C-alpha cells in the first residue's frame, strides 16, 4: 500500500498542523496562558497522522492525556482547540474539558482521557457499534507504552479479540511513562509481544516514519474493515518535550544525548527531505504550507483570546441530558 502523492502531502500537512499547534500551545503554557496540565505530542506526529490519514470522520478514535495530536490528525480545527486549551466557552468542550479531555464527536474523536488506559475499553465500545451497525467503520485506540501495563488495556484487547471487533490498537511507545523508563516497568522489549496473548496480529513500525505508520495502519484498518478483527500496532517513537509542559524542571530522567539522537530523526523534517527528493513537495510549497498554517494558528490564538470564559451558571449544565418528563 504505497501511498500516492496526495496521501503523502496529506500526511505531511497533518504532521505540520500538529507540530505548529503543539509548539504554539507550549509557548502559551510557558507564558502561563494555559491553565492545567499540558502534554505535548511533538516528536510523535507521524503516528497520529499515519494512522488517521486512513480514517474518515465516521471512524472512531480514543485518545490519551496526550491527545491534541490525535484530534488534529482526525481533522480538529485550531480555533475550538485553542479555545478549549484556554478554557474558553468557544472551545470544543465549552471550556469544561481542557487539554486532557479535548474531543469532537462529529470528527469521531471520543476524547482525550486523563486516566491512563481508560480509552481502550471505550474504543471497544465504539468498534462494537460499528460492527453492530455493519457500517464498515472502525475504531482506533491510541495509547502509550505505559498504558499497556494497566488492566483496562488488557481487558479491552482481549474483549475486542473475543468479539472480533473492527478495531486497531495503536501503541505509541515513546519509552517512558511520565518520568520512568519503560524497562523499569516491564520485562519485555517490544509491546507487540502482547498481541499473541490476545490472538491478534502485532506489528512493529518505525513511529518516526509517517509512511511506515501509514502502511501498517492501512493494512490493519483494512483487516478490521474486512471483519477480520483487531491488530496491535506498536510505533516506536519519542516525545521531544517533557512529560507535561515543555521543559523538564524537575530531576533529569532522560539523558540529553538520548533526546538528541531522537531529534535527529524528527518525523517532519526527515519526511520533508524525502518528499523533496521525490519531487512531491517543493521548497516553495513547503514554505507556503508552514506560512499558511502558522497564520491559522495565529488566527486561532486571537480567536481563543477574544472568546469569553464560560459563565458561572454553566457549572450545573451538561451534567445530565435532560429528559422529557412524560415519554
Amino acid at each position: 500500500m504505497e501511498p500516492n502523492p496526495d496521501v503523502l502531502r496529506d500526511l505531511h500537512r497533518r504532521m505540520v498542523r500538529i507540530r505548529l499547534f503543539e509548539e504554539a500551545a507550549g509557548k502559551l503554557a510557558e507564558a502561563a496562558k494555559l491553565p492545567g496540565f499540558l502534554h505535548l505530542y511533538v516528536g510523535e506526529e507521524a503516528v497520529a497522522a499515519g494512522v488517521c490519514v486512513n480514517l474518515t470522520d465516521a471512524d472512531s478514535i480514543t485518545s490519551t492525556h496526550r491527545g491534541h495530536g490525535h484530534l488534529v490528525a482526525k481533522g480538529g480545527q485550531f480555533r475550538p482547540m485553542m479555545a478549549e486549551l484556554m478554557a474558553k466557552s468557544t472551545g470544543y468542550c465549552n471550556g469544561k474539558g481542557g487539554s486532557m479531555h479535548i474531543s469532537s464527536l462529529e470528527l469521531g474523536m471520543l476524547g482525550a482521557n486523563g486516566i491512563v488506559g481508560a480509552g481502550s475499553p471505550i474504543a471497544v465500545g465504539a468498534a462494537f457499534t460499528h460492527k453492530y451497525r455493519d457500517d464498515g467503520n472502525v475504531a482506533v485506540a491510541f495509547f502509550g507504552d505505559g498504558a499497556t501495563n494497566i488492566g483496562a488495556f488488557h481487558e479491552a484487547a482481549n474483549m475486542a479479540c473475543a468479539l472480533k471487533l473492527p478495531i486497531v490498537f495503536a501503541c505509541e511507545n515513546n519509552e517512558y511513562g511520565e518520568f520512568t523508563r519503560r524497562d523499569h516497568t516491564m520485562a519485555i522489549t517490544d509491546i507487540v509481544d502482547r498481541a499473541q496473548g490476545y490472538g491478534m496480529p502485532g506489528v512493529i513500525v518505525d513511529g518516526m516514519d509517517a509512511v511506515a505508520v501509514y502502511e501498517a495502519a492501512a493494512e490493519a484498518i483494512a483487516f478490521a474493515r474486512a471483519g477480520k478483527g483487531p491488530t496491535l500496532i506498536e510505533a516506536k517513537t519519542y516525545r521531544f518535550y517533557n512529560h507535561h509542559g515543555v521543559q523538564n524542571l524537575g530531576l533529569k530522567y532522560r539523558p540529553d544525548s538520548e533526546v538528541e539522537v531522537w531529534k535527529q530523526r524528527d518525523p517532519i523534517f526527515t519526511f520533508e527531505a524525502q518528499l523533496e527528493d521525490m519531487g512531491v513537495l517543493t521548497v516553495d510549497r513547503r514554505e507556503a504550507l508552514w506560512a499558511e498554517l502558522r497564520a491559522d494558528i495565529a488566527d486561532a490564538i486571537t480567536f481563543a483570546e477574544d472568546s469569553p470564559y464560560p459563565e458561572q451558571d454553566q457549572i450545573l449544565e451538561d451534567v445530565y441530558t435532560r429528559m422529557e418528563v412524560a415519554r
Partner: protein
Amino acid sequence: MSDERSLSYMMAFNEAVRQSMRADETIFCAGEDIGAFGGVFGTYGGLQKEFGARRVVDTPISEQAIVGLGVGSAVTGLRPIVDLMFMDFICVAMDQIVNQAAKLKYMFGGKATLPLTITTAGGAGLSAAAQHSQSLEAILCHIPGLKVVYPSNPYDMKGLMVSCIRDDNPTVMVKHKRLLGISGPVPEDLYTVPLGQANMLRPGKDVTVVAWGRMANESMVAAEILAGEGIDCEVIDPRTLQPFDTATVVESARKTNRVIVVHEAVRFGGLGAEIASQVQEEAFDFLDAPVARIGAPFSPVPFSPALEKHYVPDAKSIASGIRGVLGRKSPGR
C-alpha cells in the same frame, strides 16, 4: 385484566428488557453469562434466544471492558444495557463508571449523550459474605452524572427498568438478590415509572419511614406490626436514589414531624445521612425528634447466617427503631 397479571421481580426485569429490545433496535445487552445461560440470576433468561448473540452478548470476565463497551457504544449511538453480576463488582469497574461514564458528557461540554444502563444485584441475605453482599448505592449517588434506581417490587422493577433504558444518561439499576423471586401485579404493556419520583407505599400520620429495595418491604411489615400498637407509619419508597425525590420526603416530614431512614448499607456514610441532612435542613421547625437512621453496623458483611441475620435490618429491628423515634420502648428491650 392485564393489570392483575402477576409476575416475579426477576421476570418483570426480563420483560422490561425484552419489550424494550423489541421496540428499539439500538438496544443490546452484554455481560458475563447473560447470553446462552441467561445470567446467573436468570434475569436475562431467554433473551439471546429471541434476539440472537448479536444483541445479547456473552462477555469475558472483564468488568472494566464491559462498562467501557457500554460507554463507547452509547456515545456512538447505541443504547447498551451492561450487566455487572454483583454490586460488589462495581468496584472492579469503578473507573469506567465514575471517571468515564459519569463525566464524559460534562467533560465534552455537553456534546454527548450516554444512554447507558448498568444492571447489577445488590444486598445481603444469602450468606454470600463480604464480597457478594454489599449495598454500595451511596457511592454511586455521590457521583454527579449517574442516576441510580433500586426497585422494591415487580411493578416498579419493570417501569423503572424501562425508564433507565430510555434515559439518555448513565443509569444504574440495582436489583435486590433477595427480591428476585417475589411476585406482584405487572401490566403486560410497556409502561414506565418515571425516574426521580418517590412512591408512597403507605400513608400515615405518626412517622415517616423512608426505605428502598428490600428494606421498603421490611418497613411495610414493620408498619403492620406497629399499626397493631396504634402507630401509624407513612412509608415512602424513593425508588430512584439519584436524583432523589426530596420534596415528597420533606412534605411527609412536615406532616408527621418524625422521620426515620432505613437502608441495608452500613449506617456511616450511607444514603440515609444525605436524606436525614436534607430533611433537617428543609423541615427543621417541624421535627419533633432527630431524623433517625437504621443501617448495618460498621463492618463488612459477615458470612455466618448467625451473624448476618443480626447484621441486616429487618422488620423487627426497624419496628424498634421507629418506636425509638416516637420515644417509645420496644417490648423486651
